[in-house]
């Protein structure tokens, strides 16, 4: 009955499938980061000015800071449920490489939080006076940026797993590391809004995505093993 062990890739795919199924069964939790993103964005017209011209000038910064904070909020429950009910322990003891499993888990997390954020960003951009034509550019930049952020953030989430009130600490640990994403991402969005080509910052953002995609799961796996003690 027992064939050979599942390959790391199939194991990672299983983890993704399970998280997507779980999210499908209980979608409310996914709305929180989105609602937070919309709320933070609407604070700026109220605080800066209702003038669209003025808002368009600060739109990239507003969208990116709001997306960054929403992603940080979402990272808080990346591992929390699995840690509490013992699933993370079973991952660590499954004989599969924990790095691959966490790669899958973080990818699923991005699909459930990063992608919705990138779909919502052009909409909120429109409310800040950004022309709809820039929508595709905003969507692409936020999608790529949130992918890198999910992976770098997964290290922080794993490190602060065993810590009470870990949410605040998670932000302090991750924000300095997220500065390059913020810089290249908002620059790319700015160019996209201006209708200019934004390939240069996108390539740099892409480099960070590849770096975090490959290295972050290693650090997150080590951090999870430490937090499970």
């Amino acid at each position: 009955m027992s064939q050979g062990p599942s390959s790391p890739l199939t194991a990672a795919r299983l983890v993704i499938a399970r998280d997507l199924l779980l999210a499908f069964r209980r979608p409310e939790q996914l709305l929180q980061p989105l609602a937070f993103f919309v709320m933070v964005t609407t604070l700026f017209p109220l605080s800066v000015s209702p003038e669209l011209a003025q808002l368009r000038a600060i739109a990239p910064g507003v969208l990116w800071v709001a997306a960054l904070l929403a992603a940080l909020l979402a990272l808080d429950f990346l591992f929390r449920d699995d840690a509490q009910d013992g699933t993370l322990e079973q991952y660590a003891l499954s004989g599969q490489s924990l790095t691959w499993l966490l790669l899958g888990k973080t990818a699923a997390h991005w699909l459930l939080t990063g992608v919705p954020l990138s779909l919502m960003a052009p909409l909120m951009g429109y409310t800040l006076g950004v022309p709809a034509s820039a929508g595709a550019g905003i969507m692409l930049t936020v999608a790529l940026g949130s992918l890198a952020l999910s992976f770098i953030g997964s290290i922080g989430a794993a490190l602060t797993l065993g810590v009470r009130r870990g949410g605040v600490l998670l932000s302090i640990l991750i924000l300095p590391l997220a500065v390059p994403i913020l810089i290249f991402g908002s620059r790319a969005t700015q160019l996209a809004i201006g209708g200019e080509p934004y390939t240069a910052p996108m390539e740099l953002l892409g480099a960070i995505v590849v770096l975090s995609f490959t290295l972050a799961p290693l650090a997150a796996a080590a951090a999870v093993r430490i937090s499970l003690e």
Partner: protein
Amino acid sequence: MSGSILRAENLHLWRSERHVLKGVALTVRSGELLQLTGVNGAGKTTLLRALCGLNYLEDGQVFWNERNVREDRAGFHASLVYLGHEPPLKPDLSGSENLHFWAGLRRPTTAAAIHDAMLRTGAAEFGARPVRTLSAGQRRRVALAALVLAAVPLWLLDEPTTNLDAHGQGLVAALLDAHLQAGGLAIAAVHHGLGIEPARLRELNLST
């Protein structure tokens, strides 16, 4: 599966200031059940978690088939299942879905195999219902089905009979007996005996 042996020597572990494991040593051979007894806080759970590598051992070695587990950690983990106090099940998924994902991590499983395992632990009739609607005893039976499905030589069980009625405890004893007969090993942290025949039983009291 038969002929496996788990040996540990000179295990030391601290919980910040408390010296929980003081030079613990143990040997479990194929077909044997080692019962860990002792008062609460004596370190039964800590020892189980230290053996499988969840807790960080300050000193001492663990050998699986005479090879230090640190050399092939993945291989060692692939040959054991650790069941903690709470069965690791997702409330929003059904019993069979939970088993599909849990056992699938180790090796591809079929729906039939899952159903057979649940039949053996009496979890089949409520296998399709979301786990959150199940009682603690029923959840325990789903978790035990995972043990059967994993088909690994080494079982590490932390109070496997909690929330189980007399019938359930009989089931655990039967499963364990079959596992030991087939040459498997088991270490269980218990408060009272598991009803295994003395020939296969060994005991380690952590309170003395």
